[in-house]
């Protein structure tokens, strides 16, 4: 009964939901394409991803090269975004900075998602004690303001890219867990899950094949929005000196370097800041669009 | 005989309420006329979507703005045309001269204010009396609608009351300023059957005491039979038949009314008749075809029914009907075979 039938239909189970699933995503994509703001968001993200991947091609200078004579140059044809105190080209630094932001955003949210799904599935599927434990733990993480938690963890772990992944990733799990638990609970009692159980499918199999695909749409929405949040948190951390260590260019750190020169070199703070705003805006717009696309009633 | 004019509290003439929607103009109420005598109960019957509720909201000028609008017609309440009043003037009439009881009492009361404060508010907008007097009046009203321990109930929130209790509160609130007209829009649909009768009895009893007239909107013909004296049947935003209650039940002329009659169980049915259902459902009120609105569902339809809309014709005083073929049906009754 659960034999695979081509790629579109995952399987033609008790409720034939495999078919429903594809149409859910296809319809969502169709609605998303019509949403102009979401498409703007998606374009921003695509451009940004390309910039991050092809940084060496897009940049005009070596982002770490210091030229003393060139310090504090205002934007010009040579240095599009000007230079900083050490004479480094801000445009190139902003371009290379996108790498850190994108990486942190995606990897950290990936970690949150992985922990969140595991915990949420445990809580939702088994209920009872595991549920209580997981939800109490989540409460504690909700009580921990995101940035404060990240500061505490980073202080202890010390600066560095991997530590940022860990700090931001660990702090974000609770939102995903709560959401995923909710979807698991709502799917758990549907007939096709009961049918699968009646046919002797194991818990793991039921979870992986039935619950996971159906619960994924809201996770995509939350994930997209959280990439924006993660990028802001990363910028905040590197602003506070807890991020990637120099000379690797990171937007937040560039801003903290500019803090003492907002009067004499305002371009130093303007461009990295704009880069953060645009990036986050891209994810927020796409997230909003995805939410509307998956749930047109809202 | 006293002149007819003196008795009339409310006269509605050719009321048209339209809604602008992306799909087109919805003619929710399209040429409704009726009048209301002092102290009487007028029933308005029809299916969901027939325009009953919009008619009621139009009388209070509470059509959802800006999509909806009264485009034509007069609503004469004791000689004042409510359709012509500006919002500020209209406020003075709402809740004082003309008030309304809604379908779902549990959602019609504001959950964050006590029932006492909600009734007192209704009193104090229209009457300049002190808080204490308003409080006394509220207790009187609650006693009047049969709520036990009214002085304690004042402090209750709607969620602490049952549906029937909330509807009593709504009735008390609607009657707080002795209105001339009380509109009850399906006042018992959301309630238990036993409570339904209590609420309706209560409204009729209080009507006699306060001298209000009631417009009772419902799709329940049993309720109409018991409480209304005259009936207006609506279909597709238009009135299709207008008669006193006995006539409607014993000699329905419009095929739609006959369909409605056929769809209720009657205990006095001697022959074992089957319950009849009207095929199909109410039409969309956008781009109505030129003919009779009931034409697509009418078992007696003829060619001309599709071509022109039958206007309301007077059968005899107090009885009007909008059907091309009513004379045939009448003849049927006279010959004993409807």
């Amino acid at each position, binding site marked *: 009964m659960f034999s695979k039938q081509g790629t579109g239909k995952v399987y033609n189970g008790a409720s034939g939901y495999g078919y429903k699933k594809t149409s859910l995503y296809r319809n969502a994509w169709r609605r998303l394409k019509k949403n102009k703001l979401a498409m703007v968001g998606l374009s921003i993200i695509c451009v940004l991803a390309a910039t991050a991947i092809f940084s060496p091609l897009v940049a005009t200078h070596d982002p770490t090269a210091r030229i003393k004579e060139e310090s504090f140059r205002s934007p010009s044809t040579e240095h599009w975004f000007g230079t900083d105190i050490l004479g480094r080209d801000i445009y190139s630094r902003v371009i290379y900075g996108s790498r850190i932001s994108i990486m942190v955003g995606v990897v950290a949210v990936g970690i949150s998602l992985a922990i969140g799904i595991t915990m949420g599935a445990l809580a939702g599927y088994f209920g009872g004690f595991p549920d209580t434990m997981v939800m109490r*733990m989540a*409460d*504690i993480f*909700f*009580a*921990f*303001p*995101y*940035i*404060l*938690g990240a*500061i*505490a*963890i980073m*202080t*202890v772990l010390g600066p560095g890219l991997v530590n940022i992944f860990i700090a931001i990733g660990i702090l974000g799990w609770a939102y995903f867990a709560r959401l995923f638990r909710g979807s698991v609970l709502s799917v758990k009692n549907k007939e096709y899950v009961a049918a699968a159980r009646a046919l002797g499918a194991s818990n793991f199999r039921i979870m992986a094949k039935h619950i996971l695909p159906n619960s994924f749409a809201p996770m995509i929405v939350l994930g997209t929005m959280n990439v924006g949040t993660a990028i*802001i948190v990363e*910028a*905040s951390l590197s*602003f*506070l000196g807890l991020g990637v260590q120099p000379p690797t260019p990171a937007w937040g750190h560039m*801003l*903290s370097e500019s*803090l003492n020169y*907002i*009067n004499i070199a305002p371009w130093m*703070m303007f461009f990295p*800041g704009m880069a*953060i*705003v*645009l990036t*986050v*805006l891209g994810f*927020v717009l796409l997230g909003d669009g995805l939410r509307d696309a998956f749930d047109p009633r*809202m | 005989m006293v002149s007819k004019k003196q008795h009339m509290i409310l006269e509605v003439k050719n009321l048209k309420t339209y809604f602008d929607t992306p799909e087109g103009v919805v003619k929710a109420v399209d040429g409704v006329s009726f009048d209301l005598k002092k102290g009487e109960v007028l029933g308005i019957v029809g299916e969901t979507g027939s325009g009953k509720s919009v008619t009621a*909201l139009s009388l*209070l000028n*509470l059509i959802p703005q800006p999509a909806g609008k009264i485009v034509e017609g007069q609503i004469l309440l004791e000689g004042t045309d409510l359709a012509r009043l500006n*919002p500020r003037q209209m*406020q003075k009439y*709402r*809740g004082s001269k003309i*008030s309304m009881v*809604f379908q*779902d009492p549990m*959602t*019609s*009361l*504001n*959950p*964050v*204010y006590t029932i006492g404060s909600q009734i007192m*508010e*209704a009193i104090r*907008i*229209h009457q300049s009396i002190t808080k204490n007097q308003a409080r006394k009046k509220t207790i009187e009203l609650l006693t009047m609608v049969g709520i036990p321990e009214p002085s304690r109930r004042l402090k209750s*929130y709607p*969620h602490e009351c049952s549906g029937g209790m909330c509807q009593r509160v*709504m009735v008390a*609130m609607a009657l707080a300023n002795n209105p001339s007209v009380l509109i009850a829009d399906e006042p018992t649909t959301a309630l238990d059957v036993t409570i339904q009768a209590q609420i309706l009895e209560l409204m009729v009893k209080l009507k006699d005491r306060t001298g209000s007239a009631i417009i009772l909107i419902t799709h329940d013909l049993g309720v109409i039979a018991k409480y209304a004296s005259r009936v207006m049947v609506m279909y597709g935003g238009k009135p299709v038949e207008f008669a006193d209650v006995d006539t409607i039940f014993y000699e329905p002329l419009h095929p739609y009314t006959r369909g409605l009659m056929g769809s209720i169980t009657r205990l006095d049915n001697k022959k074992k008749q089957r319950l009849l259902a009207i095929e199909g459902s109410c039409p969309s009120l956008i781009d109505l075809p030129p003919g009779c609105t009931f034409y697509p569902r009418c078992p007696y339809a003829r060619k001309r029914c599709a071509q022109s809309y039958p206007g309301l014709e007077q059968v005899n005083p107090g009885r009007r009907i909008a059907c091309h073929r009513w004379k045939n049906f009448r003849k049927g009754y006279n010959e004993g075979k409807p």
Partner: protein
Amino acid sequence: MLYYILKRILQMIPVLIGVTLILFLLMYIIPEDPARLILQQGATDQALANLREKMGIDQPLHIQYFRYMKNLLQGDLGTSYRYRRPVTGILADAYPNSIRLAFAAILIEILIGLCAGMIAAVKKYSFWDTLVTVSTTLAVCVPVFWLGMIMQNLFGLRLGWLPISGMGDGSIQYYILPAFTLASVSTAYVARMTRSSMLEVMSHDYITTAFAKGLSYRLVVGKHALKNALIPVVTLIGLNLGALMGGVVLTETVFNWPGIGRTIYLAILERDTPVVLGGTLVLVIIFLVLNLVVDVLYGLLDPRIRVAKQEVKV
């Protein structure tokens, strides 16, 4: 009501224990030897051992945690590596300033957020609505510290209207820029939530009832709709306090505000872990207490005191 408040306080306790446990564990896993950090170079082995014993770092984990909790309850947050004085003492001077700044921000958040949201809802699809929608969307994308720097540049340096650093004599003009900066993101969320909540509430039956009573538009919106619309907004304000506390660190850093946030920032630069973690704990506690206040407000606003809070959708 009293029962409700008590319940909320009791619910806070496991959260507090969890938070302290996390902070304690973080402290515990620091790779460096705290005794060495406090005494710095040149300390004798004997001195180090004595200090370790005094601090109890040679004890097993759970003993250390109890000791940590015991100290915490007595108001002891440990010793600063850098200044060799109690962390409590360092933070004591700073925390009133942070609370003042946070209150100023919450005030702005409520006033501006509510007004903007109400205007947007009442004048739906108008110019004002669009303005509110666009500016709130942008506001949540702007990092707090960058907004602070822009404001410093614009209102402080270019226009010269307001001071950009420190809290001077504590007069109001020192508060304006930092408070607005700190409030920006939350204000945007409050405005959005107020708008959507208002629009949702206005479609309810009881609003029609209120109109049918003969109430003016102003009264219906300002009394019947607003009180209902506020319920989810208050929940949101409570949840946003966390972000606000995080923002305190960034805002105080940008504006040199002598509060806990800036203390944390300076401690980060000096790798003074006890001060960072102690400061974090104090901010978390402030957040939890404020959250409790919001919860009580929520109970006052909604007579139904819902058992489960609504999910917040922004």
